[in-house]
């Protein structure tokens, strides 16, 4: 009898605590410590010339992790901890957390909206001030949950206009805005197809990855790719998708399709996720020269030698510093009380460029930069965009700065 | 004039307790080389206990054993076999899914090692020789043992024991389950062992068999050694006299005789053949308020009859009809609906859930009674269970205690409590007092008699003749699946006339 009493007692205790604190967080943002007005110690920093990689000539605050005074904890919602892009972002944010007093928490592999919302509420519990929606399944609902917990939310919902509007209404001041590459994933797929068309590839194989499993990111990339193929056909290149390979490597059906492709006359293999698992079969089939590989991928050592050897001809690359790194200045500004807002006073959507790398020189330019340990967007550049450190920083300087980055700018 | 044979095995003051029950009470037992020593006694007399302790199947509680003059205390069957004691038991000892040869040489594979290999060919050849040795030529040793029927599987087991060339071979009631051909094989083995100056301990119910084969016959009763008869004094009458011996204590069983049984039939069994076991075209009727005893050797089909009556056994032909309602009993639910109750022979695996509490076990047959409107309040459960625990005086540390921690007698009381609580009209009891000490047995008998007085019908299946004689109004004896004889309750009824029919 004691046992049953105990479990009923336990359940009611939990219910009481939930009901008690049920009402608290909705309204005020009592527990995120308000916005400590960090008054920068006078002397506006001289607007430094837009030279990337310049030394720390920004504001006179040393970028050694002491600013801002109170550590800003940030939660990053990620889909797959082992994906190249997410690891690249992690590396960049590690670099920034040495320069600024920020601490980034990464989610476990998330499979569904519920997991995403749970992680966001975990971040709140861990005292995060903001959430970076790198992976987003629940669209504006994720932003709303962050706002409910009094946390800022950064995320462009893949460029989906009405989602951004929805987020603005539901979250008000907590929505920081997000990048748009037009329809991010859709554009990614399209530029992949167009780049291959330019290189005169006609018979193309497309790996649709999670499209057949209903993962939105991959579905849009597939639609974009097919649209790109139609566009290429319209202006003269009779390009056609000869085979679609679904799913992930390791399953029997993927292996079967892969062998079938090796048996076909193919000009190029394009993949909506990384293309590394094709190197081995293509080389074994001795088609390294005849078949070009293209992917929405990363500038990383995996592709380095194969890009230079010509096996990989196209990489559609979202530079993690430009596309995702811009969350940091937005967050730091918001936390320090001078949130960057557009005309109507809300978080805003801003254009960013996606880099389509088609030549080894372009690839090596970015690769060597990273290899030598510095970055396209350095901490000093970010310091420029912080109102605390540079009073005349505002939404427009932010937009022009990040909007200007294309592959060419890196080449100078 | 027993010639002075060499003493092979001796047990001095061998005792064995199973909790409160005394299975062996300081027994001195000798086995000589070149002799077949018979052992006889009713179930629970301790004959299987002695031999299983000697073979190493279970440890003794007290006393010592000597084998070939050396102190003997085997901890496992393999150790016993290595020391030279082979044992053939009743239960199935072969492993299905592997070949006959693999069964014979189970655990002995090293014998056929040729370099890294264990040569299958050599093993099969040797197995063929072993089978021929005991005259069983019908099987190919490389075939799967599942292809053989029960009889032949037992012969394979015998071949395996003989192959280990034991100094002393124990045959424990194996002949009852075998056909005539199988029995011949065992008899030859025993004679050959005797010729090679080895020893055999032969346990059986079949008096005639014992008389033909054994040189000496030891009679056991209630864990005590009564006497040892040599060849001359071995005849059925004297054996039975010693076997029975127990004076019919008045208050032990039912005292009344000649009570009138109502001729209203409660249950009609019509030409029933059961799926398993030996039961074939069996018919009988059960009258209201009588104790119907059912006896016979352990494989005569009586246990399957118990399951048939309770709807547990698949019927190939015929039917069991509950006369009052005219319904046929197809499954346990319909049986219980008509007020049937069933106490199974293997209590721990079929009548009880050992890891569950006493309370859960007792209420497990009477949910409809305790919770008519689906709600089962703690108080109604407690009342129901306490009533049974008190009336049966079950010794326990509380109703929440696991049944596994109770003694044999108390476990049996819990089973009885389960069915008495349900207030069944017709109770099927299969070996109700098996493995229970004398004190609890007496209580059980009072209880059964009391139920009879409460006008309940009881069908008691038992392997113990004294119990059947003492308790039942009518007694049916089964042999090889068919009714071999029926006896009415009377003072003069004794075991001899029953055994006549039974064996």
């Amino acid at each position, binding site marked *: 009898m004691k046992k049953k009493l105990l479990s009923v007692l336990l359940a009611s205790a939990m219910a009481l605590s939930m009901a008690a604190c049920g009402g608290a967080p909705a309204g005020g943002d009592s527990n995120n410590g308000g916005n400590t007005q960090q008054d920068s110690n006078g002397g506006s920093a001289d607007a430094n010339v837009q030279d990337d990689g310049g030394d720390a000539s920004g504001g006179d605050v040393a970028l050694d992790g002491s600013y801002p005074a109170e550590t800003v904890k940030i939660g990053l919602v990620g889909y797959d*901890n*082992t994906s190249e892009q997410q*690891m690249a972002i992690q590396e960049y944010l590690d670099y920034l957390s040495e320069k600024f007093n920020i601490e980034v928490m990464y989610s*476990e*592999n998330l499979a569904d909206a519920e997991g995403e919302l749970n992680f966001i509420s975990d971040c709140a519990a861990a005292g995060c001030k903001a959430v970076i929606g790198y992976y987003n399944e629940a669209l504006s609902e994720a932003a709303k949950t962050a706002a409910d917990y009094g946390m800022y939310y950064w995320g462009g919902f893949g460029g989906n206009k009405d989602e951004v509007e929805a987020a603005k209404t539901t979250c008000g001041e907590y929505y920081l805005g997000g990048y748009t590459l037009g329809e991010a994933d859709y554009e990614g797929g399209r530029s992949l197809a167009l780049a291959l068309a330019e290189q005169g590839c006609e018979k193309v194989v497309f790996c649709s990855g999670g499209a*057949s*499993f209903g993962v939105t990111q991959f579905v849009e990339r597939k639609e974009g790719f097919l649209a790109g193929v139609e566009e290429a056909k319209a202006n003269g290149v009779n390009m056609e998708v000869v085979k679609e390979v*679904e*799913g992930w*490597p*390791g*399953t*029997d*059906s993927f*292996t*079967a*399709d892969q*062998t*079938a492709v*090796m*048996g076909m006359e193919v000009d190029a293999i394009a993949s909506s996720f990384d293309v*590394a*698992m094709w*190197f*081995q*079969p293509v*080389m*074994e089939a001795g088609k390294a020269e005849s078949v070009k590989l293209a992917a929405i991928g990363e500038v990383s050592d*995996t592709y380095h*030698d*194969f890009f230079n050897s010509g096996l990989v001809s196209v990489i559609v690359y979202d530079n993690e510093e430009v596309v995702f790194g811009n969350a940091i200045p937005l967050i730091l500004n918001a936390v320090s009380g001078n949130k960057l807002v557009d005309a109507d006073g809300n978080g805003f959507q801003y254009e960013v460029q996606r880099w389509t790398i088609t030549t080894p020189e372009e690839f090596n330019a970015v690769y060597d930069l990273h290899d030598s340990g510095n970055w396209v967007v350095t901490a000093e550049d970010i310091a420029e965009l912080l109102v605390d450190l540079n009073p005349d920083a505002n939404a427009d300087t932010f937009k022009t700065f990040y909007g200007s980055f294309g592959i060419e700018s890196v080449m100078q | 004039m027993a010639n002075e044979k060499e003493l092979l095995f001796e047990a001095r003051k061998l005792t064995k307790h199973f909790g409160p029950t005394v299975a062996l009470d300081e027994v001195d037992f000798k086995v000589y080389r070149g002799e077949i020593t018979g052992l006889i006694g009713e179930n629970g007399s301790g004959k299987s206990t002695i031999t299983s302790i000697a073979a190493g199947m279970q440890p003794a509680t007290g006393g010592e054993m000597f084998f070939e003059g050396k102190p003997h205390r085997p901890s*496992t*069957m*393999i150790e016993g076999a290595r020391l030279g004691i082979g044992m053939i038991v009743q239960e199935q*000892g*072969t*492993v*299905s*899914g*592997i070949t006959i040869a*693999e069964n014979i040489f*189970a*655990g002995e*594979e*090293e014998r056929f090692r040729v370099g*890294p*290999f*264990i*040569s*299958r060919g050599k093993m099969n050849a040797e197995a063929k020789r072993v089978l021929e040795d005991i005259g069983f030529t019908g099987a190919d040793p490389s075939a*799967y043992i599942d292809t053989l029927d029960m009889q032949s599987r037992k012969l394979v087991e015998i071949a395996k024991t003989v192959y280990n060339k034991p100094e002393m071979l124990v045959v424990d009631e194996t002949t009852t389950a075998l056909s005539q051909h199988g029995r011949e094989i065992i008899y030859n083995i025993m004679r050959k062992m005797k010729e090679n100056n080895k020893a055999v301990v032969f346990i059986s119910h079949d008096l005639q068999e014992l008389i033909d084969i054994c040189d000496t016959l030891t009679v056991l009763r209630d864990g005590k050694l009564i006497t040892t008869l040599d060849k001359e004094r071995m005849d059925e009458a004297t054996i039975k006299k010693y076997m029975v011996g127990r004076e019919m204590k008045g208050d032990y069983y039912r005292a009344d005789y000649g009570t009138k049984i109502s001729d209203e039939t409660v249950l009609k069994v019509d*030409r029933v*053949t059961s*799926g398993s076991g030996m039961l*074939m*075209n069996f018919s009988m009727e059960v009258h209201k308020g009588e104790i119907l005893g059912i006896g016979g050797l352990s494989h005569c089909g009586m246990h399957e009859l118990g399951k048939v009556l309770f709807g547990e056994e*698949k019927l*190939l*032909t015929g039917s069991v009809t509950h006369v009052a309602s005219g319904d046929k009993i197809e499954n346990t639910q319909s049986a219980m609906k008509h007020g049937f109750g069933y106490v199974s022979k293997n209590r721990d695996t079929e009548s009880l859930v050992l890891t569950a509490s006493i309370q859960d076990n007792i209420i497990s047959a009477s949910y409809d009674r305790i919770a008519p409107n689906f709600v089962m309040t703690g108080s109604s459960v407690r009342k129901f269970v306490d009533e049974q625990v008190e009336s049966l005086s079950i010794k326990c540390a509380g109703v929440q205690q696991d049944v596994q921690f109770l003694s044999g007698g108390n476990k049996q009381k819990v089973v009885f409590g389960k069915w008495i609580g349900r207030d069944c009209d017709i109770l099927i009891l299969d070996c109700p007092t098996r493995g229970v000490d004398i004190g609890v047995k007496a209580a059980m008998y009072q209880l059964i008699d009391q139920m009879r007085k409460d006008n309940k019908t009881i069908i008691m299946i038992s392997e113990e003749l004294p119990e059947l004689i003492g308790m039942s109004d009518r007694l049916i004896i089964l042999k090889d699946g068919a009714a071999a004889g029926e006896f009415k309750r009377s003072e003069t009824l004794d075991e001899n006339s029953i055994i006549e029919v039974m064996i």
Partner: protein
Amino acid sequence: MKKILKNTGMTIAIPAIVYVFFLVVCSLRGVKGFGVGDDFATIIYTTLYTGLIALAMSYNLTCGRFDFSVGSTIVLAAIVGGNITKENHLSAFAMLLVIVAIAAVLGLISGLAYVLLKIPPMVVSIGITMVYEACGLLFNRAKGVKMIGNSALIFSRPPYSVLIVAAALAVLIFLYNFTKFGYQWKMLRSGQKIAVDIGVNEKLNAVLCYVIAGVLLGLAACMYLSKFGTVAPEIGLSSSSYFMSAFLPLFIGGAIEKYSDKNVGVLMGAFAQAIITSGFAKLGLGSSLQTVLNGVIVMAFLVYTSNSYKIGLHRMYKEKRSRALAAAK
């Protein structure tokens, strides 16, 4: 002689029937080139790869021990072994040894965990899977292993792949039929109590099963690594996807065992599974539809194997009933 013919006939029956079935369906649907050329190469690879995993599982599953950590052992062995090979530029054969050794040790650990903790195998293997997957993630900072173009990756192509599986099969047939371990394993499978009473050391036998499974999984890891050149760590028990396709071969192997040898039976099952997958791919069925059909086939086999004893029982009942009726006349 006749018996041998019957046995070999029955052994190859299932894969043959499946092959013919798909040949017919493909030709009806006008799909050319089923099971020829490259398709056949894939069928061979999938047969050997799934066969190795099914063989590894068969030694534990038939003894009632479901091992959840099959997938995580493959991943961890491939990642650790692959990186060691890459750093020290080992030869293909050396890589094989390293990966198989690591997998064998992993098998030993999960075997000892089961035997020493005496917890139901299903439960302990889930704990083990979590730990192995996490180690795979932490090793090389979640980058897994990338050995693309490395000269050691030769085990997915016929001469080598067939060689290592043939060698494994030979060893298994030897172990299964001619060693003490094999005899005792067969006894423990259906007669656990009797075997232990007789004195068979069940603990040693169980641990050996896990080590053998480890070795086989090591071979499978080499084949996977050679095929794709890269292995990413799995997390959150998702490594269970590796053994999904092993069920059908296990059941078919169980059915074929009487006619030849369990290990050959399991490989035949894997061969049938590979043909089915290749057939589906050829007919252009979507991958989700394939999983559904595969699942249905496995369920059908499940129902057959678990109820096949009833046929024998039924025959016995019928025979006894006729005997009873005859006696009653």
